[in-house]
């Protein structure tokens, strides 16, 4: 066991993917010589050269569209969009082109591309550099949506995302880049569409992803003292998501909490609740409670952002409410 920061794990996954498959290229702003604003692409230029590590102008729509064309023409582009808020600029390329091409061309060709982008608050980056928009992408047939919770999963899921033949939106919580966690000596890829039970438990299932997973684990630790046992599930892939693992857990615990950093209203949690309260209706011994951000843009000031961010306390409150 070694420990690794999530940013470093992403960097390793990119390196390994590029070593293994010559058609993998990376594209984005300041990703080559500089190695990316968060360092995710550091060293790639030296190792793989400018033909595969491509600095792009500030033309997000243009180079994401280019990635679609490249993916249709034999490359596997991994695009970096510096902040998830900027994915607002690339929605046509992702939604009308990448997501639909395979389907609307009659299955002639897949679009093997990955769009990496950081979301999330906690660093006072303000309303236009913090938003969590994963729910958008999960609503689009043809896209896959992935969000790792730590270094190991970031490596494993990014490898799988790059290997995947379909367009994947790969979301990195920026507060996790510097967070170190244990990783095995050799890391392998983790299949898309499979959740992971991070911590088994009996009383309440907590489904989460990304940075909220650690907070759910923390809630579990705190509630142990009261003999409330949480089963914490890391969704890993948001679309297609692992309904089976969640349902089986619900069948054991009969209580469910869904937690994420994104705004609660119309967020990813809504789908999980809606699905489970349908196929799992007879299993439910209490309401499914969601934890998510309040209905407001991510505010800048330290005190405001701290009040805004959903956390361990909120998960604990949700657990209490579902078993009340």
């Amino acid at each position, binding site marked *: 066991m070694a420990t690794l920061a999530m940013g470093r794990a992403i960097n390793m996954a990119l390196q390994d993917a590029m070593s293994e498959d010559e058609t993998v290229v990376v594209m984005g702003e300041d990703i080559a010589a500089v190695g990316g604003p968060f360092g995710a692409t550091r060293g790639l230029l030296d190792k793989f050269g400018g033909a595969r590590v491509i600095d792009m102008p500030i033309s997000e729509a243009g180079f994401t569209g*280019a*990635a*679609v*064309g490249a993916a249709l*023409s034999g*490359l596997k582009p991994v695009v970096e969009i510096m902040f998830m808020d900027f994915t607002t600029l690339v929605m046509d390329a992702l939604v009308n*082109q990448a997501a639909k091409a395979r389907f*609307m061309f*009659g299955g*002639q060709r897949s679009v093997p591309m990955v769009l990496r982008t950081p979301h999330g608050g906690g660093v006072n980056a303000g309303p236009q550099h913090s938003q969590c928009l994963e729910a958008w992408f999960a609503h689009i047939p043809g896209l896959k949506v992935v969000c790792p919770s730590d270094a190991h999963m970031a490596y494993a899921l990014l490898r799988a995302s790059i290997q995947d033949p379909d367009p994947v939106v790969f979301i990195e919580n920026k507060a996790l880049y510097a967070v170190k966690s244990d990783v095995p000596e050799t890391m392998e890829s983790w299949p898309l569409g499979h959740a992971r039970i991070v911590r088994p438990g009996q009383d309440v299932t907590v489904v989460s992803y990304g940075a909220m997973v650690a907070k759910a684990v923390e809630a579990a630790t705190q509630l142990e003292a009261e003999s409330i046992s949480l089963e914490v599930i890391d969704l890993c892939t948001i679309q297609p998501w692992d309904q089976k693992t969640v349902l089986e857990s619900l069948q054991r615990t009969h209580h469910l909490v869904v937690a994420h950093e994104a705004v609660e209203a119309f967020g990813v949690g809504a789908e999980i609740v809606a699905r489970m309260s349908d196929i799992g209706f007879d299993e439910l011994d209490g309401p499914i409670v969601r934890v998510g951000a309040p209905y407001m843009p991510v505010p800048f000031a330290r005190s405001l952002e701290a009040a805004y961010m959903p956390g361990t306390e909120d998960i604990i409150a949700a657990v209490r409410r579902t078993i009340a």
Partner: protein
Amino acid sequence: MKAKTSDQHKILVDLYKGLLLVRRAEESLSSLFADGIVPGFIHLSIGQEAIAVGIGAHLSSEDTVASTHRGHGHALAKGVPLEGFFAEVLGKEEGLCKGRGGSMHVADLSVGMLGANGIVAAGSSIAVGSALAHKTLSRDAIAVVFFGDGALAEGLLHESLNMAQLLALPVLFVCENNGWSEFSPTSKQVSFNLEKWSAAYDVPYMTVNGNDVVAVHETAGKIIAKVRTNQPAVLECQTTRVRGHYEGDPQKYRGSEEFDQLADRDPIRIAATKLLALGVKDQELAAILDHVEREVSGALSAARNGRDPDFESARRDVYTGVGA
């Protein structure tokens, strides 16, 4: 000298065939549309065929084309099979895209046709990416994007031209300037001059009478030679839209003087005149027409006999390899 004349003759005959094929295919669709047999809406390129045909003659099936909503000519000139084309536009299982896309999404990756596109200007970044793949994978191929004059107002085109020039990519940007953007004259929508605009990016620019297939073929030959050296370029083709923006458009917004001029500018008439001047006999022209006529009606009736597409296999094509 004699050899040259007969080469020219052969080329011109082929171009003429190409024009007739597009024309007759679209005229057939026009009457089927009027009869309510074509679903959705279709945009015809009647009057503009010489552009697709003159340029298409220079392209191999490794070369890629990104097209527009008005893309029938681009597809046929790129060599997509006629029957599959018709079947697609009619929404049949035998269609190139299994009836899932229709007129605005005709694609045949096997011949380098990356698809018509329902989003104005979207093809430009797709072509840039396709050219990037050609270059990165050391393919001796170029990418061609067709777009209308109205599309010049989309920022994406600017981003694409800039990227192509920065990365020295083999992309030909073909503007089909028909003076109209839907129901409005493009002069009210685009304030800039394409020649000066290209010059600002230091991108080579040529313009040509887009209704003269010989002129298009010749000019395209020159500029494509440049593009094959990884120098992106712009080719502006002055042309005429004969039909409405889409079929069913009564074109009340166009003056009768404009319509009066159309006959003289008919690409087929212009090409026929040249052929006759080269000594080709009337009968030969009639024989070509007859040949095309039979090809078109054969393909069309085969297509019309196609099956309704299969819903379940469509559903499975949202992602790759979901299987039965």
